């Protein structure tokens, strides 16, 4: 990652003094401020987090770093709970992404069939996307509050009387549901864009050949939007790795670690226990995971000719 930056920024600069090829110089100058700032905002923190991971960080009485060798790393690989955090993170992502993909595609197929009021319905369905995740969490807490929550009341009528965020299983289900509430519309929106671009003659031809609605869907429509679905999945996956606000304000990782995914663990390690060195190791591991996924992501899009 670092080498990429260095080579590209030097190239940007070295292109400038060549007078006969002025256009490169111009584009270089256009790029310079943004790229330089981005480099400062990413390369420096990257170096910092690597240094932190080999240090013991003291914040009291001025910042100081003591070289701690591999102790943070050793702790990371021997921490008996760490495996569970990653496993839980994986489960959380698979569940949220899976539900969002399935529900989003179904929703898009329904909206697609709509002629009258399509714009209105779509607009209403999209609203959750613009709600701050922290408010999704707080609103979720309001709705499942054991004494006054609307959804708790509904659940009680259905025969479930417990405290939703108090049970390990129900708390996990609740944070998954909140994520699904917020982000299913994104998948639906992208899928709908794909659906409206399926050429009609293709569908007509299939129908003329005697294909039923289900067959057309299965063999014509879904294959032609598979690229779009891939984009939707990957975009959502990348964002799902980034955020953790909902869990942070609803359960804080509890009860009994039931919702403690890796970013939550990192956050509390750093800003509750002030163990910055260990947090840096967790952060680097997360960064590594996201780079691997990002690489796959760009490569897959490239292969489909979808990346610019």
């Amino acid at each position, binding site marked *: 990652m670092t080498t990429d930056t260095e080579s590209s920024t030097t190239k940007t600069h070295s292109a400038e003094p060549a007078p006969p090829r002025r256009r490169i110089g111009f584009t270089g100058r256009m*790029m310079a401020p943004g790229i330089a700032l981005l480099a400062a905002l990413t390369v420096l923190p990257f170096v*910092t987090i690597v240094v932190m991971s080999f240090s013991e960080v003291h914040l009291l009485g001025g910042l100081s770093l003591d070289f701690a060798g591999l102790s943070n790393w050793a702790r990371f690989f021997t921490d008996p709970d760490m495996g569970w955090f990653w496993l839980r993170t994986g489960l959380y992502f698979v569940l949220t992404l899976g539900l969002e993909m399935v529900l989003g595609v179904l929703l898009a197929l329904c909206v697609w069939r709509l002629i009258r009021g399509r714009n209105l319905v779509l607009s209403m369905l999209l609203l959750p996307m613009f709600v701050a995740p922290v408010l999704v969490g*707080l609103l979720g807490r309001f709705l499942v509050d054991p004494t006054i929550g609307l959804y708790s009341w509904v659940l009680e009528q259905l025969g479930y009387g417990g405290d939703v965020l108090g049970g390990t299983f129900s708390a996990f289900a609740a944070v998954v549901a909140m994520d699904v509430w917020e982000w299913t519309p994104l998948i639906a929106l992208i899928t709908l864009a794909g659906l409206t671009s399926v050429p009609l003659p293709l569908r007509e031809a299939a129908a003329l050949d005697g294909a039923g609605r289900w067959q057309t869907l299965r063999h014509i429509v879904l294959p032609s939007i598979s*690229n779009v679905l891939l984009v939707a999945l990957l975009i959502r996956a990348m964002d799902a790795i980034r955020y*953790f606000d909902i869990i942070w304000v609803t359960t804080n990782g509890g009860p009994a670690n039931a919702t403690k995914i890796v970013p939550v663990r990192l956050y509390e390690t750093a*800003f509750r226990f002030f163990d910055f060195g260990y947090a840096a190791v967790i952060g680097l591991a997360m960064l590594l995971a996201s780079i691997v996924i990002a690489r796959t992501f760009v490569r897959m899009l490239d292969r489909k000719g979808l990346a610019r």
Partner: protein
Amino acid sequence: MSVVDTADSRAASAPGGGTDDNRGGPAGTRGSRLSPLERTGTGTRVVIGVALALALLWTLVPLVWMLLSSFKPSEAINSADPQWLFDPTLRHYTGLFTGGNELLPYLWHSVAAAGGSAVLSVILGALAGYGLARSGMRGKRHLSFWIISTRMAPIAAVVLPLFLMFRQVGLIDTVPGLILAYLTFNLPFAIWLLNAFFADVPQALEESARVEGCTNWQAFRYVVLPLTKSGLVTTFVLCLVFAWNDYAFALVFSGPHSQTLPIAASQLVTQSGIDWGQLCAIGTFVVVPMMLAGLAVRRWLVTGLTLGAVTGE
């Protein structure tokens, strides 16, 4: 530009213009032209109607409940049975601006931090995005990948080193600090997205402008920029939404002099309980502007949120 354009124009022109899009219409109006596929049976229509009704219920109930609760007297909120009928009150809203809960500073911090980061992102992103779109440099693909990968970095992992760096240079608890922090995710997003919009502008337009005597800069400023207005607005709105909705960065970097609205909302959660009425009022305050902004650029949302990956047919 984006595929969603097609969706809009089709839906709008379906009765008159499109022979191709009359699926859900009453059977018989244009039935002869339709293939069997396009005729939706009553059963299917009922299923779709029910599914959409459920989806709308699932989507809207929490939002409507928040809006309603923000106008409810506290007794109605704290009742064990849901109250749909009540005497509306503005108490929770006025309560946000009176007494100990002075919301105005939070509002100002939010506007300044989110707005500042969005403006800077669009300016720097437009320059860099255009440069990237027109550059013939080697290693451009690596540069592009690096740019977009910074946008995908986990927030928790980014916050950690930035916290130490900001502490060293005194950027903790300042609005400029928040703006810089937000740039870590908004700037790569803006560069990448605007790059996609600029790549769609035919290069011949700038060539001819230059033949007419424009400098490179003038060709960009007076020919290309006006053509990408929708891209610039979309980028601005999305950057604004991302920054406005941020919680993780603000939680770490802000203090009394820079706390934003999401922090104000979360601070209503105290040991002694939560003032849900005020929370719903703040929530409405935070959410409504972003919804309006988001819906205003809905046509370009797909392009924006997929970073230009799903464009064209």
